[in-house]
């Protein structure tokens, strides 16, 4: 590499050379990422504003405490740490691909691009699992009409309010209609097995209440509705960035494989794709902070 040592005090602005010493494409990628940082920043700050404006917010250790194939074990932070390490690892393989590109090593670039793409898909798979888990999760919450009902976490419902006391649950169960009671009883027995759902619909309210209380029902108030919208909105927007990043990386892999960059004489496109990919990792660092850690 013919490195021209740059003198201290080079006159960058006197014409004849780019003041930024970088290609147009790379400079514009940086500005795109800067504007994208403001978009994500605005979303996260909006989330923070709403969170600061209410008296109660869902405890992330309570909401995100499950792990695939671990059943109902209480594992706060575990799954999201896995997702974080997947993304950091794929960032490392990306920077290694850029590094191999500088050395004009086509095989090396291909190898690390493949690893980066696998990391991207692994992250998306984790996110898909987490979304499914929240959207289909069954949590019993106290509705405004004073009855208990099963609620999933969606943009319209948030079952993660303050926990109800035993007495409050007992009082609310008395108000709850038979259909909701049998649904709650069925969900409690879903894990332990036992009486089938159709048997429960024939049971009286008092029988169902007794059954629910012996199963040790835990219920809470509904939480701020904004929680689901912000969580799915921001992690969804980030996930969409990851998805488009994976597409870009696949295209870069194909172009490497076809020898386009070798013919061009440099692997700068890998660098630009890498900038985008690292940015996706960077945003995750903040999403991880705002939604899961604090």
């Amino acid at each position: 590499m013919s490195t021209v040592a740059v003198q201290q005090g080079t006159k960058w602005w006197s014409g004849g050379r780019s003041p930024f010493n970088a290609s147009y494409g790379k400079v514009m990628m940086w500005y795109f990422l800067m504007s994208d940082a403001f978009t994500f920043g605005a979303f996260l700050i909006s989330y923070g504003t709403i969170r600061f404006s209410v008296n109660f917010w869902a405890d992330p250790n309570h909401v995100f405490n499950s792990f695939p194939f671990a059943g109902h074990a209480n594992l706060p932070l575990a799954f999201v740490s896995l997702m974080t390490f997947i993304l950091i690892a794929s960032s490392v393989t990306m920077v290694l691909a850029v590094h191999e590109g500088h050395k004009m090593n086509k095989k090396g670039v291909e190898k690390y691009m493949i690893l980066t793409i696998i990391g991207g898909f692994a992250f998306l798979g984790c996110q898909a699992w987490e979304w499914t888990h929240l959207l289909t999760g069954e949590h019993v919450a106290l509705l405004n009409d004073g009855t208990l009902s099963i609620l999933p976490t969606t943009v319209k419902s948030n079952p993660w309010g303050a926990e109800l006391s035993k007495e409050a649950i007992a009082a609310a169960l008395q108000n709850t209609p038979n259909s909701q009671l049998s649904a709650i009883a069925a969900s409690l027995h879903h894990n332990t097995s036992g009486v089938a759902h159709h048997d429960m619909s024939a049971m009286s309210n008092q029988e169902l209440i007794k059954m629910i209380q012996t199963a040790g029902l835990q219920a809470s108030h509904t939480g701020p509705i904004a929680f689901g919208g912000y969580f799915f909105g921001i992690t969804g927007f980030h996930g969409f960035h990851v998805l488009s990043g994976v597409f870009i990386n696949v295209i870069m892999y194909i172009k490497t494989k076809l020898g386009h960059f070798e013919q061009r004489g440099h692997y700068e496109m890998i660098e630009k794709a890498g900038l985008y990919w690292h940015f996706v990792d960077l945003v995750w660092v903040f999403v991880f902070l705002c939604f899961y850690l604090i």
Partner: protein
Amino acid sequence: MSSSIETSTEITFHPEHASGTKKISSTFCVLSLLTIIELGLGFFLYAKHGHLGAISVLTTKVVIVILTIAKAYYIVSVFMHLGDEVRNLIMTIIVPLCLFIWFIIAFLWDGNSWKTLRNRYNGTPKIEKVTSPAVLEKGKKN
């Protein structure tokens, strides 16, 4: 190998990139370590939930935020090679981002002010959309 990028008028010199993977792996270690410390503090908050004063919770959270900013610095400066670019480019990225200082302070302040005003004029602090009296009692603690 002759490359068009080296003859491009846009590039006067190339920063020394291909200096080995040592810096990459050490940065990976730093990022992992910072993440593990963050997780440790997260677990600390979880384990001590309800037993810590507001000041200690806030301090722990501030430490987590500082560690996150350190992670962001390493990703941007090493992985994205912003540290290797010329000062002019670095400044056009960093200076506009300083708006975030105002942005975060102003909006979180605003959110907090909403809470204070609502609690003051609505009397008892309310948990959103909850009507039963037992809840209002509980809401006072929050």
